């Protein structure tokens, strides 16, 4: 028997999910459900949209309206959904590959438009679904099946990029920082505008193994050790640690509101 919160928010007949033992994605998916439960939102009015990837498989488990789309394009489908029915809470669940590799353009344009969609990026620094290739967030020098000699790419800072592109709420939490994850996700959902929560995840199966970083537990510990909870990214830079916090939270004209105003002219 699952807990009440799971029973209320998931299609329990589809659980347990397909993710590997100890995969961070399961933890993050829980946080989203709990955020929605805590906010007491009408589940009929929630639409989860995802792309393709391990992370993007999340959509199928939520007992809301859910759309599992094509690789990288979740935000564009979500834009169609939101504009067609602005009353919906549209939440995009995506991976680092889905959101920032093939989907990078849609991410920055959604940020720019400041359309009221909440985007949760499960960032495990790897392409999990296809078996461990490097992603735009794989740290330099790390190994991956397509970087057998170490990655020479520089990683994106998803939060910095999103903020520069125009997102109005930007935060980072992780599969370790579950309380922050819960609280930022709630704020993001209630934020009227485009919000991005980078949710640092872990892939023991590919990322962990390739980089000899130990077990699922070890990977979560690593997140804990390598991060610092602060909203001040400059302060984090001094410590060379990854900041966990809310880095941007401003109010600017929201896209569907602006469109509504336009339509009301006639």
């Amino acid at each position, binding site marked *: 028997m699952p807990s009440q919160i799971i029973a209320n928010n998931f299609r329990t007949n589809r659980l347990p999910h397909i993710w590997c033992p*100890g995969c961070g994605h399961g933890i993050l998916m829980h946080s989203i459900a709990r955020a929605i439960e805590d906010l007491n939102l009408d589940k009929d009015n929630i639409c989860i949209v995802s792309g393709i990837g391990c992370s993007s498989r999340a959509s199928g488990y939520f007992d809301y309206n859910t759309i599992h789309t094509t690789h990288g394009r979740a935000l564009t489908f979500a834009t169609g959904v939101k504009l067609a029915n602005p009353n919906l809470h549209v939440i995009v669940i995506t991976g680092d590959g889905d959101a920032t590799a093939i989907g990078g353009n849609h991410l920055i344009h959604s940020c720019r438009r400041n359309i009221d969609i909440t985007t949760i990026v499960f960032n495990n620094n790897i392409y999990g679904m296809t078996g461990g290739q490097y992603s735009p967030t794989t740290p330099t020098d790390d190994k991956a099946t397509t970087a057998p000699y170490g990655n020479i790419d520089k990683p994106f800072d998803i939060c910095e990029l999103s903020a520069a592109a125009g997102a109005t709420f930007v935060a980072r939490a992780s599969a370790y920082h579950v309380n922050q994850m819960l609280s930022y996700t709630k704020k993001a959902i209630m934020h009227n505008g485009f919000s991005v929560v980078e949710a640092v995840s872990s892939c023991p199966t590919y990322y962990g193994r390739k980089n000899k970083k130990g077990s699922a537990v070890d990977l979560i510990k690593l997140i804990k050790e390598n991060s610092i909870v602060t909203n001040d990214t400059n302060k984090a830079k001094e410590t060379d640690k990854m900041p966990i916090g809310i880095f941007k939270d401003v109010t600017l004209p929201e896209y569907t509101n602006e469109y509504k105003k336009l339509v009301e002219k006639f």
Partner: protein
Amino acid sequence: MGRKLEIEESWCKKCGICIEFCPKKVLNMNNESVYIENESECTLCGLCELRCPDYAIYIAENI
């Protein structure tokens, strides 16, 4: 009505996360699943529930 730590063994994938991050070291693992070793220590903080990737451990409410 009270609150109680519950485990759904059939859902546990034995990753060990709940054990590691339990502040009170309440949990342990056997061949089948995780199990509650020191129930008396448990403060019902719910961190294991929040961190279990498979929703196999949780605080049951209104028991």
